[in-house]
């Protein structure tokens, strides 16, 4: 039982934080948003820090770091509201590339570690509503190759992706988990069309329209779903940590504001109604931080315990993000709703995080379905 960070982890945190402070302050971020939500320069900065290969095995030129290291990085990126889809490439897709059987996967991993074109997961569809097994995109065998057709939405590609890991159905009805496989689809191939758009949090995403697009099988039906679930759990843990970093910063901004803003001749921090509110905000923040630790530390558990834990974490984070986000805006008063001031941007990112990899209601359903007789951290 130990929740201290190692010296190496503290150093990692320090280096990410310094990079954010130096290269990703609020004004620079604003410029990134204006230019479409992705900065090649920032991406290169993450590469130069060695962060892109954080979880790429050392054999492929990465650092081979673990879940807690990823959490540390994500907290700091969250604090700085970094828009670039770091977790999508360096945590989620990196996991799938390692789990996959395609010979090209190792090359992609090496590329990611070098800061070359990345890979992102494209699993969501218009009607999947966070379900990983609800897949309408179809894959048909064609000699040694596969042809994929269908549309994926919300693909976290700011332009850095060279390929996509696409979940597609090789057999079965739309929600048959056993018929889903994972494929590598390269950008720029015939039948691969990207429709990019900005997202509510200032980042960039795209719909991926596949028409008889060529794909390489990364994981066959049967093996794909457990790996996909694991990858999404890694993504959930990353989002939890990012949210904790973002909330930490948002609460700090709010506390600062409460102590300086004067009304009726006194700082608004002196009003008990607001004091109790900030106490409740602190509660939600610490519950969220506790469950973010829980999420990271449960990633190595066998699938049933891992899935239950990650859903529990996402429920807590969802509740916390909404409460902290809404109340910190409220505590700021008018300035909180402006585009000019940072608080609203934290609020919007927290809102989008809730709707990524399953919202609170979705994961409450998961917790409810996976409930056992015993309860608790070690159940």
């Amino acid at each position, binding site marked *: 039982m130990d929740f*201290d960070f190692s010296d190496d982890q503290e150093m990692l945190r320090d280096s990410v934080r310094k990079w954010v402070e130096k290269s990703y302050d609020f004004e620079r971020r604003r410029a990134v948003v204006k230019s479409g939500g992705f900065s090649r320069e920032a991406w290169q900065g993450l590469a130069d820090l060695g962060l892109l290969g954080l979880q790429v095995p050392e054999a492929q030129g990465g650092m081979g770091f673990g879940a807690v290291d990823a959490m540390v990085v994500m907290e700091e990126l969250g604090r700085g509201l970094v828009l670039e889809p770091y977790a999508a490439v360096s945590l989620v897709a990196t996991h799938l590339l390692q789990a996959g059987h395609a010979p090209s996967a190792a090359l992609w991993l090496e590329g990611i570690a070098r800061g070359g074109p990345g890979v992102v997961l494209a699993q969501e569809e218009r009607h999947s509503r966070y379900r990983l097994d609800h897949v309408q995109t179809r894959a048909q065998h064609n000699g040694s190759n596969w042809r994929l057709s269908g549309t994926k939405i919300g693909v976290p590609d700011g332009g850095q992706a060279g390929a996509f890991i696409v979940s597609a159905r090789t057999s079965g009805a739309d929600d048959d988990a056993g018929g889903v496989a994972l494929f590598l689809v390269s950008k720029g191939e015939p039948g691969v069309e990207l429709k990019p758009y900005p997202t509510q949090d200032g980042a960039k995403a795209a719909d991926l329209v596949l028409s008889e697009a060529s794909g390489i099988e990364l994981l066959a039906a049967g093996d794909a779903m457990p790996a996909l679930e694991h990858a999404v759990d890694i993504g959930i843990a990353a989002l939890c940590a990012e949210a904790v970093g973002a909330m930490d910063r948002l609460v700090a901004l709010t506390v600062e504001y409460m102590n300086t803003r004067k009304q009726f001749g006194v700082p608004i921090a002196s009003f008990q109604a607001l004091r109790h509110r900030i106490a409740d905000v602190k509660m939600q923040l610490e519950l969220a931080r506790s469950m973010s630790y*829980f999420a990271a530390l449960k990633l190595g558990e066998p699938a049933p315990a891992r899935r239950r834990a990650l859903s529990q974490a996402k429920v807590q984070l969802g509740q916390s993000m909404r409460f902290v986000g809404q109340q910190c805006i409220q505590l700021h008063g008018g300035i909180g709703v402006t585009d000019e001031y940072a608080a609203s941007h934290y609020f919007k990112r927290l809102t989008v995080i809730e709707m990524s990899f399953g919202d609170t209601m979705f994961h409450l359903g998961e917790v409810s379905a996976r409930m056992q*007789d015993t309860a608790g951290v070690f159940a």
Partner: protein
Amino acid sequence: MDLTFTPDEQAFREKIHAWVAQNLPKDISDKVRNSIRLTRDDMQRWAKILGKNGWLGWGWPKEFGGPGWNAIQKHLFEEETALAGAPRVVPFGPVMVAPVIMAFGSPEQQKRFLPGIASGEVWWSQGYSEPGSGSDLASLKTRAERRGERYIVNGQKTWTTLGQFGDWIFCLVRTSNEGKPQTGISFLLIDMKSPGVTVRPIITMDGEHEVNEVWFDNVEVPADQLIGEENKGWTYAKYLLAHERTNIADVNRAKRELERLKRIARAEGVYDDARFRDEIAKLEVDVVALEMMVLRVLSAEKSGKQSLDVAGLLKIRGSEIQQRYSELMMLAAGPAAVPLRREAMAAGWQGDQLGGAFVAPLAGTYFNMRKTTIYGGSNEVQRNIVAQTVLGS
């Protein structure tokens, strides 16, 4: 970072588990598991069993006869006893007054009072709140006047939990009206059999006699029962509050009660109702998050590397969770929780009850649990404290 207990800690847990399985009387754990009323004898029987093994003062250091466990070991002990259905140890002696006596009492006082607390022979009560002094405790008026080698105590304490069984009571009393209210308070130990002490029951809304008023009418207290220095009592009381850390969240009991909630929901046919089940699932997330927060505090205490000032949060969250599970248990029983059967609160009751005897105490427990957000520093006072820490002013 690591979410596992070390092999030593695991072995420690198993040792406690086996001992509790051997030594916790089944009639007592049956009562605890079903919210049946515990008698004085039940509570003291368990206290003495623990005391005989040197574990009633499970948080005590070795020099005072305790086991000298670290924060993790204490937690494991609390968890194993709670999950096994042991009654909550009445805290006033071993958890509350004993650490104050150890830290501020004279060697004579330590020799005189600690053995009776450690063995469970002497039942202690707490005399803090007064009718006019709740959240504003420092305004207390119970007066102790020094006359030679004695104090003469006059006044009234209230909300004295289980004071009807008390042998001794530790009190905050006013010894001076000079300066700030906090600076005129002393910490006095009083024999409840002294002439002039009267204990009167307060019946709470569940119909139970759990709390009392304690009146002091010219009670003579030997001056050697003053702890530490006169007018320093507030400091000692604050030390006591700081001593009560993670235990305040009562997360181990919450885990046990959550299991019980699931059993009741299943028996009442609402476990598979999506709306009800989701409420249980939400509570389960709350309990896991609280447990993680407790474990973070324990880890911080063990390593001493990072300080975690979240005692107020633990109290707020722990008490809200206690209220919520008692509420959901009652709602699970629904109409079967409505009949008032006070006799069903006694062990072995075989009467005819709609839904079975296990539903009889559920509404009463729900009513009883309203106290948890009021006592021990109301949750609103806790929010003041949390806000002060967060805002730095």
